[in-house]
Every structure is written in C-alpha cells, then in structure tokens.
C-alpha cells in the first residue's frame, strides 16, 4: 500500500461527527488544507512533512521543523543563538519597532527570523540556514544578515557546503539602510565561499521576495525551489500597479522561474533531503579519497569539534 493510499484509507475510516470534527480541529488533531480544504489527521500531515496528501499543497513550516526534516537526528549544532535584534533607528510606525520585536519574540519563542547551524544531512556535514516566516515575515535585518554571514564564513573555514532555506518578504524596513546593506554583506561572504570552491544551494520556499531574492536566494551554484512557491523581486501588487493590468496566474511562481531559467529544479518537500544529499555527493572530489570511497561520505580533514562525535569515519 502506498503512503497516499494509506492516508486515504485513514481519512475514510475516520467518519467523524461534524461536532467532534470541529472540536478536534480546534484541538489540532485534524488540520484543514488551505488549498483544497481536505481534512487530514495532523500526525499524518506531519509524517508527510506538512505536504497535503490529497493535493500536494506545501503548508508553511517553521524553522525548527525544517531543521528536523533535513538534519540527521543528534547532529544539529546551532550557531549564534544569542544574537538579538536592537532598534538602531528608534523606529516607530503605527507601533514602535521595539514593541513589535518583543511581541513577536514572545509569540514565537524566536529571537529573530533565521536559525543557523552545522549538522549532517544524510551523514554529509554542512552549514544550514533556515529562515522563519513567522518572525516579521522572515524579513532581513541586521541579525539575519549577521547570522547568515557568520554561517557562511564558518562553512568557508571548515570547507563545508551551505544550504539556506529562504522564506522572506525582503529587507526589514524598520532597520532602514542597515537592512539593505545586509544583502551586500551576505553576498560578500558567498563570494569567498565560492572562491574556496565550495557548493552553495539555496532552497526557495513560499514566499521568497524582495531583497532576499535580489541577493543570496539567487546566488546559488544550484537553485532549488519548492513547488508553487511565490518567488520574485517586486511584489505582485507593485507589478500590477506599474502595469495596471492583471497578471497571469503562474507569474512569479517556482514553475514560472523554472520555465524562464532562474531555478534549476523544483523538488517536493518530501524529496528535498535526498535531493540535497545527492547534489552534495555529486560535488565531492573525484576520484574520492580512501575515506570517502568506502562510504561516499565527505569527511573534511579537520572536523569541527562540535561534529566529531556524530560523524562517520571510515577506518
């Protein structure tokens, strides 16, 4: 029985009373797909990495879930968790930035919009950054810029590939020009990583727009996208206003970018880990060193201390 059949059976068998169903949605036992409306047992949805088993819609997931999906258990070593945003401009719109930050931090338990760390993906050591859309729309301010730059610099020193999972509305306006300059800062670090002959793969998820698109999202050696993600530089509404006409439905989607040559491949979330592992393995030196030959696992000459416990050594 395929996983899909299994899900289908499971849904059929659960012919619940409407009342009970509503209660259980509220309790989080069942989840409703925002695309097709079908109810799925939340546990099953999680097992399927928050991809609707019925229509294939990729529900939004958060940074910690993404790390769990991509990184081998017990190998994740987060970096720079103690970096916190400040309010350099004393910015206030309808609400003070400082209050907005505090509220978002309390609500999400996050300090800012990106998590970074070192870990293993299918036994391959790498640097991973994951943006979290929950935190002010994944907007990029000083902390996002600094954490990603440190991640890339660390990966360059330790000769590791880098994967960054993007989800962002763009630069964080509340930090003004400091935010814009993070685009250049991260790009600078990527230039050095590239110069060192190392692989960088951004994964574009819904939505990836603005300053993130105009910097590290588009600088991959290979660019991977999740299905039907919105990816673009200018916001759709801005483009519509510029043109004063309706745009085609697939405008600024992963599929649109693939057609126009700006994305290498669209990979469903359920296959993302194995695809990334394949890409990283394809970029390991050939012929492989004796250590790699036995396992096809990349073991750098000097393992970072934090990884040595869990890494695979062929001896």
């Amino acid at each position, binding site marked *: 029985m395929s996983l899909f059949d299994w899900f289908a059976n499971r849904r059929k068998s659960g012919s619940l009373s409407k009342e009970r169903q509503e209660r259980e949605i509220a309790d989080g036992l069942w989840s409703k797909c925002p695309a097709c409306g079908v109810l799925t047992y939340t546990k099953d949805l999680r097992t399927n990495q928050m991809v609707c088993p019925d229509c294939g819609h990729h529900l939004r997931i958060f940074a910690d879930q993404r790390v769990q999906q991509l990184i081998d258990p017990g190998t994740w070593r987060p970096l*720079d968790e103690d970096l*916190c945003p400040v309010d350099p401009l004393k910015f206030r719109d309808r609400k003070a930035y400082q209050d907005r930050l505090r509220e978002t931090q309390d609500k999400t338990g996050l300090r800012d919009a990106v998590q970074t760390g070192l870990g293993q993906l299918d036994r391959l050591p790498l640097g991973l950054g994951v943006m979290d859309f929950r935190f002010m729309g994944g907007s990029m301010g000083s902390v996002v810029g600094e954490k990603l730059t440190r991640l890339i610099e660390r990966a360059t020193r330790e000769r590791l590939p880098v994967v960054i999972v993007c989800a962002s509305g763009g630069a964080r306006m509340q930090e003004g020009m400091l935010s814009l300059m993070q685009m250049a800062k991260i*790009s600078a670090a990527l230039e050095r990583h590239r110069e060192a002959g190392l692989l960088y793969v951004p994964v574009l998820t819904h939505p990836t727009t603005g300053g993130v*698109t105009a910097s590290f999202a588009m600088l991959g050696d290979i660019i991977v996208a999740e299905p039907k993600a919105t990816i673009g530089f*200018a916001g759709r509404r801005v*483009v519509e206003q510029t043109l004063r006409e309706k745009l085609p439905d697939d405008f600024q989607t992963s599929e649109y970018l693939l057609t126009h040559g*700006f994305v290498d491949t669209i990979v469903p979330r359920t296959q993302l880990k194995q695809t990334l592992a394949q890409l990283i393995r394809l970029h390991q030196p050939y012929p492989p060193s004796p250590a790699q030959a036995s396992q096809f696992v990349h073991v750098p000459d000097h393992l970072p201390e934090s990884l040595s416990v869990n890494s695979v050594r062929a001896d």
Partner: protein
Amino acid sequence: MTLSDRKPILLDFEKPLVELDSRIAQIRELAEENDVDVSDQIQQLEARATQLRQEIFSSLTPSQRLQVARHPRRPSTLDYIQAISDEWIELHGDRSTGIDDLALVGGIARLDGRPVVMLGHQKGRDTKDNVRRNFGMASPGGYRKAMRLMNHANRFSMPIITFIDTPGAYAGVEAERLGQGEAIAYNLREMFRLEVPILCTVIGEGGSGGALGIGVGDRLMMFEHSVYTVASPEACAAILWKDASKAPQAAEALKITAADLKALGILDQILPEPIGGAHADPLKAAETLKQALLENLAELTRLSRSQLKELRYQKFRSIGMFTQLSA
C-alpha cells in the same frame, strides 16, 4: 550644462525665496522708472535672500530633501560625466538580453588623465527623455550592462566610478521575467571579486536594491541633499502605516539622509552642495564631485589588489547593529 539657463522649477519650501526675489525685482523696476538710487537697499535685500536660502537649505526635513533629490533639474549621471571627464565614450548593451537599457548608462572616460569606467542610472532630462529612460529605473539588462563594463574595467585595470540615481529597480513583468532579482544579486557578489578601486556616489535618489546593484564599492559618497532608502517612503508608508499619505513620516523614520547614514556607519563622505541644491549651480557641484573622486582614487591607488578586496569586504562586513546576550 545648460540646465540652469531654463526657467526655474520651484519646490514649495522655496516660496519665501520667490517672494523676496520678486520684491527685489519690483524695487529695481520702480527705482529705474523714478530714477532713484536704491543700490544699498537692493544689496541688503539680496544679502537677506542669500541668508534665507542658506537657512532653508541647511534645515530641510527628510521629505523636503527627497524633493530636492528628485528635482527634475538635478544634474544627472551624464551631466556629471560630461562635466568632470576630459573625454568620454558611451558604450552600449549587456550582450545577452537583446535590449540596451537606457536607464543605466556607462562607458569609458578619462578623469584627470586617467582612463576609468563610469556608469550610473540615468533619469531623463524632460518628459520624453524620461519615458525613454524609464525614469531611471533600470531593468535586468541595465544591471548586466553595468557588470559587463565593470568586468571590462577589471580586465584593463581601470577604476570604476558609479553614480546612483534611481527610484528603484524597475518593477515590471518583463523585468521579472528576465530575472531582476538575479541580475542585482549577481552584481552584489561579483563587485566583491573585482580588483580595481570602486567609487560609488549617490547623486540624487538611492532607491533600495536598484541602487545597491551598482553600489558595492570601496567608498560610498552622497551629495548633501541626496537620499538612500531601503524602500521608498511612499511604499514604506503604504505597507507599515497602511496609508501612503504618511510618506513624510516614513521619510523621517527610515533615516535616509546623508547625515543619518554617516552616523550609521554606512556612508563614508558627504559632498556639500551649492546653496539652493546641486541644480542651482551644477558646475560647482561637479567640481566638488571631481575633487572628491580624485582624492579618494589617490588613496585607493596606493593599495594592493588584495588589500583593496580585503578592505572592501571588511567595510561591508562591519555593517549592522545587534546585541549578543551572554548565555
């Protein structure tokens, strides 16, 4: 530069000046008709006008500055290039998209005897020209042309001088289809690879990623009344205030003026403008620009290629403000 010969275009905060100027003219006329000597009086009034002009322009609010930065008579990239270089040849095309983007111009010039590559956003000098030049909003082809010219400079060891003056990168279907994000991103990374001095100057409006796409350099300078923004105050007001009419508040909050950006450690140098703004005396503004470019170039020329790259990296590496909690 014939811009200053034309009838002036007045900004609303310049009105007191106009009133004073017309009073001076009136008195002159009356004096002539009645054959009286009023030269003392006129001299006094003119001195007051100068003082008033100075006062107004030294205390502009951010949104007033934005008006000066967007002034239709403000000297453009090509105006400055022609004013400061000994010779100049414009070069066209990015060799890939199939359209030459007129919103971003570039070529090779000789600056005080030295061959350099100059490029920048180009706004139109009138309505018709503005349409042709898309109001200085460059398309992917423009950013790729800039990159092609910068690579050329790198190959022939010519310094790169860029002029920033754009409301932002063009937000159109065609621009998106041709990879506006990718074009800018590519420049951001590649400008860190180049081994020749890069000098960037915001001459008018520095609009977001569209400005930064030619804005990665060893020195960032801004004319006194120029602005540089993460998002246009209009867009910012529409998004954060949900009210586009709050643009002046947004302009204030975003810290877009040269003085603010100097304080934030983003800007290296502020270029003073003639009283009344660069459009009041374009040649004087051009002279200021030329001197600043030559001075900075002299400093950067003393550095080795690797020093240049390292310092450029460190310059951007240090931008950002955050705290690090002790665990």
